[in-house]
């Protein structure tokens, strides 16, 4: 299974570095007074090419490990099943989704309301099903949200999104 840790990231990084290099070639040059011989493209090229070389090494390493695994009969054929992967890692996916929704609605709805909702949802995600206690979680979420809002807005004068309701 070790090859997966090399092959997959290697392929992703190879594609990424190619895109990066293409974008680098589109950086506009500056040749006026005070310009330098290297210009704005040189260093991104250096990083991009280095990353490309390193990712290819990773891909080659992954392919080698894979053929070795097949030879030693330790190769396990796995089918990529997206639905299954998501189900297996549902807490991770849900953490991302809830955080993304929280950030997206932070400005329109406001810090206080969104934080209370987010704390409630995220705490439930991180609690195993049999240990969930909705009422306690609900109350602690509201208490923490109000406390944070009070401390930052009133005591520390940090500006936080107010939202349509004005708090």
């Amino acid at each position, binding site marked *: 299974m070790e090859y997966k840790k090399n092959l997959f990231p290697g392929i992703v990084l190879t594609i990424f570095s190619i895109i990066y290099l293409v974008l680098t070639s589109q950086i506009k040059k500056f040749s006026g007074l005070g310009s330098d011989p*290297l210009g704005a493209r040189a260093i991104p090229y250096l990083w991009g090419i280095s*990353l490309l070389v390193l990712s290819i090494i990773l891909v080659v390493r992954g392919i080698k490990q894979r053929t070795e695994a097949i030879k030693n009969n330790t190769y396990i054929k796995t089918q990529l099943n997206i639905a299954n992967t998501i189900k297996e890692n549902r807490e991770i996916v849900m953490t*991302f989704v809830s*955080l993304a929704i929280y*950030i997206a609605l932070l400005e329109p709805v406001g810090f206080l309301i969104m934080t209370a909702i987010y704390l409630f949802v995220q705490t439930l995600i991180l609690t195993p099903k049999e240990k969930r206690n909705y009422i306690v979680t609900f109350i602690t979420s509201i208490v923490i949200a109000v406390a944070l809002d009070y401390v930052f807005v009133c005591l520390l004068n940090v*500006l936080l999104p107010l939202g349509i309701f004005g708090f």
Partner: protein
Amino acid sequence: MVVEGLMNVFSDPLVILFIAIGVIVGIIFGSIPGLTATMAIVMFLPVTYTMTSTQGISMLIALYIGGISGGLISAILLNIPGTPSSVATCFDGRPLAEKGQAAKALGVGVVFSFIGTVVGVLLLIVISPLLAGLAIKFGPYEYCSLAIFSLSLVITLSGKDLVKGLIGAIIGALLATVGLSPIDSRQRFTFGSADLTAGFKLLVLLIGLFAVTEVIKYAGQVRKPEKIEIESGVKMKGIGFTAKEFFSQIFNCIRSALVGVGIGILPGIGGGVSCMISYTVAKNSSKHPEKFGTGIIDGVVASESANNGTIGGAMIPLLSLGIPGDPATAMLLGGLMVHNVSPGPLIFDKNGAVVYGIFFAMILSAVMMMIFMLVGMRGFIKVLNIPKNLLLPAIVVLCCIGAIGDSNRIFDVWGVLIFGLLGFGLLKAGIPSSPMILGFILGPMFEENLRKASQLASSDSAFRHPIFFLFMIVTVIVVFMSLRSNKKAAQAENSIASE
């Protein structure tokens, strides 16, 4: 300036209060496995936004010192290091606890953590002005070679897998190229977005990598909880060990602290490495190396003096060159910038009072750390039971506040989410994130100075810059030696595997 710094810290009761809070919270974060000193600093950064610079920076420093020291509690009681810095404390701390001497192990850990911190701070006070004085003469050539030298340390720090260590560093450098280029201000990878033109912030990257990634990691283990049993019956009486034992460890302690400071100075290598190296050094030079690992205080002393010595060591390049020694000091770098203190050779001229304030705050934090841990150990042990499912969501919210509050834009919070996702992907791929921070900070420094040097090359030849050549030669030696030792380590591992 020294007096002004002293007055800034001790004449303001709020500073002392914030340091006390910082130390306590730091110890708690350090002692809970999965929460680190870096996270404690991330979390409290927004709290310091509206404080004065001395108040805010003192609090962040206190969190750092408390966080590194707190790791020993869980290392000894749970056999899980609370922070990576306490990995080696488990080796002898745990056997001591199993023999019923947990109180002794904790006492030794706390007292020698304190001594380690003080040794580190004293060296910081002596070395950083000297280094800043030297660095003030640095021009583009010198800075360029310094960046190359620091980046070459990635090779030492990435251990067996050099390719992945380098990939980490380059991803960091790539991220730093987004925005306006140095010197000629060309738009790079901005896709016409005004937000991207300002580039990514170090703070946003750190919050995403070290806080959000941790929450996601925890989310992956919700259905497979680890059973942890905590001995809560430990009673602390005084410091838990005798004066004779104390004096027998003085030499070991000083040597370990010096190892810690030395490793701390090198960019990117933090307490996790220093405690391991110091433990090995103590074992190899001991008269009874066979007793190491069976529960002797020598091992605890070596690990804890070294990781706390690293604090002072890591602050040296941070203050005098602006290059952080480990992720926690990278976070402090972010904190210093928020408070308009720019680390670098001029820091003693521009922000002298703040720097001396930092020194005094460090000493005060170390004293408070020792007192709180000796007196309140039972309380800290109880806190180990705090439910993480309640704590982590609150940390995420605090991180979001930290990201918004820095420059008042939601764009930065999206950055936190994206970097959290990136951090999780890298974790899954086995690519280390510490080199990435180093690349992110050193990449732009390298580019700016290389390009300035290229402008100078026709009028001011590189041959007139001996420091440039010195750094380049040291870099070649470091790369060569660490490649050789990595190869040896890999061969040793292969021969063990084939037997």
